[in-house]
């Protein structure tokens, strides 16, 4: 083997060879099927919290009167407090377990993926999900008319997302977007964009429908969890079936 520089090697051939190495390394390193399936299963396990009892109509209690740490469950659901506690544990566990997965897989394949930014996005997102409703309610109800009026478009939309117990979906979406960048994966980016589009569409439907009390059935809020969970599970399964063995 020669140690000499390859000044006479064709640049096109060298570039193609490096592009092939890069492609093969990325393919061997991709492991995002696991967090997709994990968060899909965690969302599917949350379904009972989105199901209302038959006799309940409308909101129970005052907005924001639940425990602060359970704020991820919102206010609109019958089981908001339970959902809030569930998501607090599920989000942190989901990010930590997938971090452990990447560590394990890195040792096995010999290719470590940088995951610090992914964990940071998960922890900061979860904290934001807990604290943001308080800030949004303050902006909407406790500031002067000028401030609340100017910010109401954003605050009402975001509060709607939080109150339907869908802020955890946004935390997952941000985490997956960060992961798509770290993994340099277009496929993961596409799945994450589909997931985010489903979350936005469901919220848009609830927001624009202007439901009256009694319009919603006990199944209505399942819409907040079923389509996003299906997208994560289908995306994760497709990635698992098409992955390169380690």
């Amino acid at each position, binding site marked *: 083997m020669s140690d000499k520089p390859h000044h006479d090697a064709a*640049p096109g051939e060298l*570039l193609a060879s490096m592009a092939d190495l890069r492609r093969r390394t990325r393919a061997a390193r991709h492991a995002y099927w696991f967090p997709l399936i994990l968060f899909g299963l965690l969302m599917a396990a949350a379904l009972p919290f989105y199901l209302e009892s038959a006799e309940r109509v409308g909101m129970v209690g005052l907005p924001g009167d639940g425990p602060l740490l359970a704020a991820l469950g919102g206010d609109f659901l019958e089981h908001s407090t339970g959902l809030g506690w569930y998501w607090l544990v599920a989000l942190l566990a989901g990010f930590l377990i997938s971090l452990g997965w990447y560590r394990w897989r*890195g040792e096995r394949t*010999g290719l470590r993926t940088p995951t610090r930014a992914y964990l940071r996005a998960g922890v900061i997102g979860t904290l934001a999900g807990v604290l943001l409703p308080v800030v949004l309610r303050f902006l909407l109800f406790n500031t002067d008319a000028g401030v609340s009026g100017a910010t109401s478009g954003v605050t009402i939309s975001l509060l709607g997302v939080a109150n339907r117990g869908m802020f955890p979906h946004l935390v997952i979406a941000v985490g997956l977007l960060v992961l798509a960048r770290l993994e340099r994966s277009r496929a993961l980016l596409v799945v994450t964009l589909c997931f985010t589009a489903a979350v936005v569409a469901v919220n848009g439907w609830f927001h624009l429908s202007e439901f009256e009390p009694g319009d919603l059935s006990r199944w209505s809020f399942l819409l907040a969890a079923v389509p996003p969970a299906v997208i994560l599970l289908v995306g994760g399964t497709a990635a698992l079936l098409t992955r390169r063995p380690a």
Partner: protein
Amino acid sequence: MSDPFPTNGLDDTVHQRHRLGILTIAAETETVEVSYLREALELTPGNLSRHLAVLEEADLIELERGYHGRRPKTWVRITAQGRHALEAELDALRELLRRRA
């Protein structure tokens, strides 16, 4: 004045197929284990060590030695200087290709 010829941008430390390969793989990861590099680049342990030593000497990579269970493992991390050198090399190669076209 005309543009400098792109071969001036080629660095002899980096412009070697296997060293370029090491930097390319390392740039895709946080750290890469030596055995992965050996298989991907089809190098003998001795040859790979020699290339790693050249790159480490030039501060383009850092080597981290450790254990996985009882097995010793060496991990390679590309430095900021290494990323810069790799980008410069690829830019020079693209420019050469463009001029030849």
